[in-house]
C-alpha cells in the first residue's frame, strides 16, 4: 500500500513510517503544507495520514484538495486537538477516520486496515490469516469455513490481533483498543487475559496457538 504521511513533527513522522513499512507498505513523508499540496496533486495514494495543525497551513485544506480531485485515497486525520468541532468538520469534509494524539501505532494500523477494507476503491471485506477468515461486513469469523460464535469483544480482539500480526501488543494497548478511555478501570488487566482466554477456547486447537505470549505479559499473533 502507498501511504502519504503529512505530519510536521519529524520524529513522529519517522516513527509512523518505520512502523508501517515493516508491513511492506510504501511510505512517503512530508512535513510542509505546500509540499503536501503538491504531492496530493500529482500522485495517488491508498492512504493519506493528515495532521490538521501544520506550521504553515491547515490539513483540512489538503483534505479539500483531495476531495476536489476525487482522489480514491482513504484519509485519516491525526490531530492533537480532541475538540469535537474539528472532528466533525474533518469527517464532514470526507475524512474516513479521526485519531487524537497520542495514539498507539498498532491502533493506527488497525484503523488504516479498516479504512482500506471499507474502501470505495474495491477493498476486500474479508480478512484472512491461514485458515481464519473474518468477514468484516457481517462481523463473522470462520475457521476452515466453519463459522464460530464470538462475543463483540472477542471479535474485536481477534481482528486487532490479525491486522497487527507479528507485532507485540501489550495488555494496555489491547485494553485501550477494546474499551477506550474506560480502560483505566482495569487495575490488573486480568480482564484482557480473560477475554483472550475465552477467544482461545473458541478457536480451533491449531489456530489458538497463533496467540502467543511475549515477554511474559504481552501478546503476539503469529504463525509458527
Amino acid at each position, binding site marked *: 500500500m502507498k501511504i502519504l504521511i503529512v505530519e510536521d513533527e519529524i520524529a513522529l513522522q519517522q516513527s509512523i513510517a518505520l512502523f508501517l513499512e515493516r508491513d511492506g507498505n510504501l511510505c512517503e513523508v512530508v512535513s510542509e503544507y505546500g509540499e503536501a499540496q503538491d504531492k496530493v496533486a500529482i500522485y495517488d495514494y491508498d492512504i493519506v495520514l493528515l495532521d490538521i495543525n501544520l506550521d504553515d497551513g491547515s490539513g483540512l485544506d489538503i483534505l479539500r484538495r483531495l476531495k476536489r480531485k476525487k482522489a480514491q485515497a482513504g484519509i485519516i486525520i491525526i490531530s*492533537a486537538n480532541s475538540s469535537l468541532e474539528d472532528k466533525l468538520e474533518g469527517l464532514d469534509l470526507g475524512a474516513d477516520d479521526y485519531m487524537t494524539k497520542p495514539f*498507539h501505532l498498532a491502533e493506527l494500523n488497525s484503523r488504516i486496515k479498516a479504512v482500506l477494507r471499507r474502501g470505495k476503491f474495491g477493498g476486500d471485506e474479508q480478512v484472512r490469516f491461514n485458515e481464519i477468515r473474518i468477514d468484516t461486513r457481517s462481523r463473522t469469523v470462520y475457521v476452515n469455513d466453519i463459522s464460530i460464535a464470538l462475543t463483540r469483544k472477542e471479535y474485536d480482539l481477534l481482528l486487532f490481533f490479525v491486522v497487527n500480526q507479528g*507485532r507485540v501488543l501489550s495488555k*494496555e494497548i489491547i485494553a485501550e483498543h477494546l*474499551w477506550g478511555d474506560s480502560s483505566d478501570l482495569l487495575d490488573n488487566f486480568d480482564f484482557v487475559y480473560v477475554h483472550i482466554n475465552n477467544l482461545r477456547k473458541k478457536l480451533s486447537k491449531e489456530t489458538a496457538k497463533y496467540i502467543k505470549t511475549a515477554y511474559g505479559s504481552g501478546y503476539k499473533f503469529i504463525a509458527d
Partner: protein
Amino acid sequence: MLRKKRTYKLLQRTSWDFLLLSVVLCILTGLALFFYTRYLLDEELEEQLESRTAFVIAELEEGRQVTSIPPLMEIGTSDRRLEKSFRDTMLYDPFENEPELFRELTSTVELDEKIYHVIVRSHVIESDDVLEPIVASFISILAGAFFVLFFLNKKRNRKLWEPFFGSLTRLKSFSLQSDEPLIFPESNIQEFQELNQELVEITNKLKVDYRNLKQFTADMSHETQTPLAIIQAKVENIINQNDINSTQYGELTAIQKEIKRLSQLNANLILLAKIDNHQFPEQEPINLTRLLKEKIENFSTLTSQEFQLSVKKRPKSLMMNANLAHALLNNLLTNAVKYGDGDKPIFIHILHNELAIGNYGKKTLRNPEKLFDRFYKEGKHPKSNGFGLSIVKKICDHYGFDASYIFKENHHVFKVIF
C-alpha cells in the same frame, strides 16, 4: 448562606416612592394648613371679642344702660378686679337646645367707684365649620394634582428608561459563543449612551479574551499531546524490535502507562476548561435509564463488579450535551468501581429527579467536603487521578444540578439531583 436581598423593579420602585412622598406631603401640608388657618380664625375671633368689649365699655363710660344678652354678653358688678383673660367654656345654648363651646373674654372696668365685669362670648363651632371645608378642599386638590402627576410621571419614566431596558434585554441575550456584535439602542440621554459604550467595550474585550482562552486551550492541548504521541510511537517501535528482553519490556510498558496517565490528565484538564468556557452548547434529550444500562453493559466486559440498577420512578427528561452526560455517568460509575469493594454490588437508584450511586465502604470519608475539589485524593489511592469527581461537580454546576455525598448504611453514596 447569604440571603438574597429583595429586589424591586425600577419603574415600580419610582412609582411607589412618588406615591409615598405624595401621601406624606398631603398629610404634612394639610396639617400645617389646618393649624395655621385655625390660628388665624382664633385671632379673628379674639379681635372680635375685644372690639365688642370695647363697644360695651364705651357705652358704660357714656353712662348708658347696657343690658346683658346671655350667653353672648353679660355685665355684672363685683367688688374685686379680675385679670383680662380669654378662655373656652361650655354653655347651654337655648336656641340650639344643647351645650355649645364658646370662647369668652372677661374684662374688668371701674366706673364711679363701681367695678364692672364684662364677659363677651362667641361660638367656637362656627370657626371649625369654616376650617374643615378649607382643609378638605385643599387636600383633595393636592391629591388630585398628585394623582395626575403620578400617571404622567409613570408614562414619562417609562419612556425615559426605555433605552436602558432595551440595553438590558440585549445584554441578557449576550453569548460569548456568538459572533454577532452586540448593538444597543440609541439614546439621547448622555449616561445611557456612556453605559452602552462601556458595555460594548467590555463585551468586546470579553469576546477577545474568550477567543484567546479557547486558543490557549487548543494550543496547550496541541503542544503537550504531540510530544506524548512521539514518545508513545518511539516506545512502541522499540518494543517491536526483536532485541529487547523481558525486563526492558516491563520498563517500556511502564512508560506507556505513564504516557496514558499524562494524556488523560491533559484530556481532563481540557474538558474542565471547556465546560468552564461553555464549549458544550449543543443539547439533546437524554434518556438516563437507557444510558446507564449501556454504561453498565460496557463496564461488565471490563470488570467483574456487579451493578444493581433500580428505577423507582421514571426519570425526568433531561436536556444535556451528550458528551457531558457520558462524562458525568462515566465518572460517577468509575468512581464507584474504583473505590468500592469488588465483591459487593454497586447500587444505582433512579428516582424522578434524582440519581444515587452507592459503593460499599467501611467508614465515612475523612474530608467529604473536599471530595469534589480538583486533585483532592482521599488517602493515597493509586488508582485515583483526582479528577473524576471534580468533573462530576463541574458538569452538575454547569446544568444547575446538585451533587452531594453521604455515608449511609456502609455505603458511600453519591447523589445528583436534577
